[in-house]
């Protein structure tokens, strides 16, 4: 090989590498902000928190045993949560997906006002102003959505807003074809 070619080949190799990694980052796979979750394949961490709408009731993951369900962490302070709210309502009402919410580090009145204004996609909402359950679930931002199977094992975690593309890619296959929960 011609000696003058060496820098050119080196440049092309580096350019190729950067192109590849940048592409992966755009697809989210190499996203430096995406912290890989520790919970896939693990039993869902237990908590017992008061229900936002009825504090005399307790919300617990074990209440959902035997069902495939979603756990969605949200707060009124989180713009991405406003964005996904409509889609969550679509999932709950049209596809009959059971969704339990964790209202995180929020003001109870503001949270209730948001649900009154935008609708309520949740079966139950655990009220967690002190991040107790949220830390046990390894949550570091909102919204985050987990899928828990009928055996109580965490199968999927999604960081960021839920939408139809994310649903199709990550969640849909855990539910039966007609869209309703198995």
């Amino acid at each position, binding site marked *: 090989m011609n000696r003058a070619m060496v820098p050119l080949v080196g440049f092309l190799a580096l350019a190729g590498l950067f192109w590849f990694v940048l592409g992966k980052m755009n697809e989210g796979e190499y996203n*430096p902000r995406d*912290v890989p*979750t*520790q919970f896939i394949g693990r039993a869902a961490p237990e908590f017992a928190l008061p229900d936002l709408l009825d504090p005399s009731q307790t919300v617990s993951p074990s209440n959902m045993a035997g069902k495939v369900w979603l756990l969605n962490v949200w707060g009124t302070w989180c713009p991405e949560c406003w964005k996904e709210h409509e889609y969550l309502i679509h999932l709950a009402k049209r596809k009959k997906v059971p969704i339990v919410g964790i209202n995180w*580090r929020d003001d109870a009145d503001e949270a209730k006002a948001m649900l009154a204004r935008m609708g309520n996609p949740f079966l139950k909402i655990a009220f967690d102003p002190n991040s107790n359950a949220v*830390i*046990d679930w*390894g949550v*570091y*931002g909102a919204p985050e959505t987990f899928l828990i199977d009928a055996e109580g094992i965490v199968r999927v975690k999604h960081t960021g807003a839920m939408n139809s593309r994310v649903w199709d890619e990550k969640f849909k296959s855990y539910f039966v074809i007609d869209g309703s929960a198995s």
Partner: protein
Amino acid sequence: MIRRTLFVGLLGLLLACAAQAKVEVLEFESPEHEERYNNLIAELRCLVCQNQNLADSNAELAVDLRRKTYEMVSKDKSEKEIAAFMVDRYGDFVLYRPPLNSSTLLLWIGPFIILLIGVSLLIRTIRRRRAEQGVNVDDASLKAAASLLDSDKRDA
């Protein structure tokens, strides 16, 4: 008199600012607990602003995780136990010093590999330069040099 009033006014403003700056006041059972707490929040990463540790970050999650750390230190949990609690939930990424395991092996030994490559390239280049300098004298100039030396001998 005016200067004095001004001075007092400025002092008051300064104190007001100092009072505004938020400082978390924590009480520890022992200096050993306090040290453990300070070590931990310096070693644990804030997951929100990822290039800050818990001690530096003002993010709400960092505040929550500091509180959790404080609670566990107060319950006399060891540094290892608390770090394990965080890794269990947030993964190795939460540690500023990643542990040595199969997925971080390259991270730990990478710099040494690069150093080794650099040094071996350097040695090769030096050797080649030296070899080139050795051969660079062609036969004609060797003969010319020899005859010059010979002529010197004859003159002597």
